[in-house]
């Protein structure tokens, strides 16, 4: 693998670096620890600024408002964002997952209607896949939609809908042919969340926040033109979406992990273990170095995965190792952080003795969700076993 930047890539980097220098908001640190709801408006404004500068959705084709950036340029993008301490983007699912799905499977009219508003964060997106009885076994989902005078009429329920509370639109998978075999009767619809009959309820998670929701549908009417791909061929579209989720989603996470790691190293110089700074404790040094190396390997795996995406255009099932790697790594990392901080690790923001505003307590609890969301570790191992290694299906 050749990681040297070409003249074109250098030009891209310098241009981006200059733009970020002039535009990254200075007050992000004041907002960073705010609740998701409180900081969401801030992040939307930041994404709008990126969009206007031409830096949102850089991997997307030029005709849809992107830059047609190469995968190397995407790597540069995330590295420069990290260097500049830039805030993350608001419309995460729209940019990373739903936009690419519309680009791959949508009609020209759909691309024109939705894509630029995803980039500008004018319309926030969520994803309606899981249901109470369809988690890992997604194809068993029961939310149904019947075609009536040019509209699909939806009834059912989705769950674990991240950003449901903030979303203007939802990519939703529904059953349109109840008589067909499980995988054959599904269709993907683009749903306006303001449509009558859509009800979003908060779902409080173990961290105490309501990052995601339950969404109920009662006789919700979706115009037939909002079908993505072919009717009853939605499984293919949904799988495409999931591959994006698992394959390329890790790029942004890399920045967060690196930042957490660096912060923990910083803390290790002052927090004490056995009467001396944790940074001098032989066992903690081993554990910190292990985390540092694994975060580095996450970046290197990502780079290699990118080069595969660039060869084929879509992320392959190999993306499952990324998902498996980053989710389990974060759990190990958060535990090392807890160990290093000792009893202080458990303190939440409300405690006057808290370190970093309770982020370590939050991070530890939040990391339990990592091996469940976007396909459990067990599902990722099934995918690697069957689709990558060619072992017989286990289920």
């Amino acid at each position, binding site marked *: *693998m*050749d*990681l*040297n930047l070409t003249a074109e890539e250098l030009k891209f980097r310098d241009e981006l670096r200059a733009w970020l220098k002039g535009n990254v908001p200075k007050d992000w640190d004041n907002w960073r620890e705010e609740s998701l709801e409180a900081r969401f408006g801030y992040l939307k404004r930041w994404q709008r600024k990126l969009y206007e500068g031409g830096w949102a959705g850089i991997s997307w084709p030029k005709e849809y408002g992107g830059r047609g950036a190469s995968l190397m340029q995407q790597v540069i993008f995330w590295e420069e964002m*990290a*260097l500049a*301490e830039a805030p993350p983007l608001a419309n995460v699912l729209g940019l990373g997952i739903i936009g690419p799905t519309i680009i791959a499977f949508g009609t020209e009219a759909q691309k024109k209607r939705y894509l630029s508003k995803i980039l500008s964060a004018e319309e926030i997106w969520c994803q309606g896949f899981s249901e109470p009885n369809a988690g890992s076994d997604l194809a068993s989902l029961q939310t149904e939609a019947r075609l009536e005078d040019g509209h699909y009429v939806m009834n059912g329920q989705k769950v674990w809908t991240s950003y449901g509370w903030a979303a203007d639109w939802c990519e939703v998978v529904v059953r349109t042919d109840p008589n067909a075999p499980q995988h054959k009767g599904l269709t993907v619809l683009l749903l306006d969340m303001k449509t009558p009959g859509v009800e979003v309820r908060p779902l409080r998670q173990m961290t105490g926040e309501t990052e995601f929701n339950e969404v109920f549908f009662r006789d919700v009417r979706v115009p037939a033109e909002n079908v993505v791909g072919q009717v009853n061929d939605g499984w293919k579209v949904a799988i495409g979406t999931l591959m994006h989720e698992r394959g390329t989603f890790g790029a942004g996470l890399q*920045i967060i992990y*690196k*930042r957490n790691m*660096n*912060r923990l*190293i*910083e803390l*290790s*110089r002052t927090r004490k273990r056995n009467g001396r700074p944790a*940074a001098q404790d*032989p066992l903690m*040094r*081993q554990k*910190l*170095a*292990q985390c*540092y*190396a*694994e975060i*580095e*390997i996450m970046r*290197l*795996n990502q*780079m*290699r995965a990118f080069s595969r995406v660039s060869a084929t255009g879509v992320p392959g099932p*190999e993306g499952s*190792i990324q998902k*498996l*790697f980053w989710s389990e790594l974060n759990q190990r990392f958060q535990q090392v952080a807890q160990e290093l901080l000792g009893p202080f690790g458990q303190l939440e923001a409300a405690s006057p003795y808290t370190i970093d505003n309770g982020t370590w307590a939050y991070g530890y609890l939040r990391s339990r969700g990592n091996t469940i969301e976007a396909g459990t570790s*067990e599902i*990722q*191992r*099934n995918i*690697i*076993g*069957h689709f*990558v*290694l*060619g*072992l*017989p*299906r*286990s*289920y």
Partner: protein
Amino acid sequence: MLLKDNARKFFAGECPMGEVRRLMETDTAYDAALWSKMAEQGYTGIIFPEEYGGVGLGKVELVLLMEEAGRALLPGPFFSSVVLAGAVLDAVASSGQKKKYLAPICRGEARSTVAMLEASASWNPADAQVSVAGGKLTGEKLFVLDAAGADSIIVVAHNGVFIAAAKAAGITIKAMPGMDLTRKLYSVEFNNTSAEKLGETTALAKALDIATATLAAEMAGGMQRTLDITVEYAKTRKQFGKPIGMFQAVQHQCADMYLETESSRSAAYYAGWALEENAPDAAIAVSVAKMYASDACRTVGNRGIQIHGGMGFTWENDLHLYYRRAKASETMLGDASFHRERIARLVIDAGAVSAKSA
């Protein structure tokens, strides 16, 4: 990669498992005919300058070649002579000495090795106790790879890096039979042996990093082969009327082997690249690669043998040959703990890291 594909074909054709098993039963695991074919391919001079008879390719190409050598479980002195001794000579020796010692290695006419460890088993050159006085070397080196077949022995001493002819007076070479049957270990005792100074131990760091990154790549190749053999077995071996690879307890272990193998490969490739480009994080990248591969090669082997059941425990099955190599490579040039401590020194102690430099 053309070089990688060619290397895979070459090793499959010239050194299949039958040949590996034949060579491992010999004293030195060295085969002159195979060696001269490797020299013809340019492998023995792959990264060295053309003025010394080398091919002048980069560290990335060396990493790819060694990955394939690892997949084939190539026996004999390629690592000790070309990678380790070659890189040390290239880094430490004078131009005249390179003509004398490196050029014959490149041409496939001579073999050398590096004697580093002593009873302290430290991979830090500064810990060497053996020293040279008045051009004479006295002391004992342990775990010296392929010493019995070497023409010269490079010695990391307290006061510099020296080279002695293997046939020089006062040298006693004895086998140290170890787990890895394909790469032989020796103790080498020097008693008032004439030695020529090559340079200072401080010049060794880069050469040892090249050897370490390359070894990590070789380990990734071994892991890949272990995974391939295991997946094939899991597809064909039936119990309870089904291929055992259908059971998630087996399949998920295969998935973990894949993750560990791919991650080792990513890290080794990057280390090779970083060394070639003299990237500021090259030393860290090398330790990341060796640290990860050292743990992963053992884990991948453990899983592979377990999935094979009783067959995995037999002499007849090839897995244990890879497993033996994995253990030897795990400790060579520093195990995972050694490299974690090195990462800690480079990352935590250097003070280079702060939350603002994410």
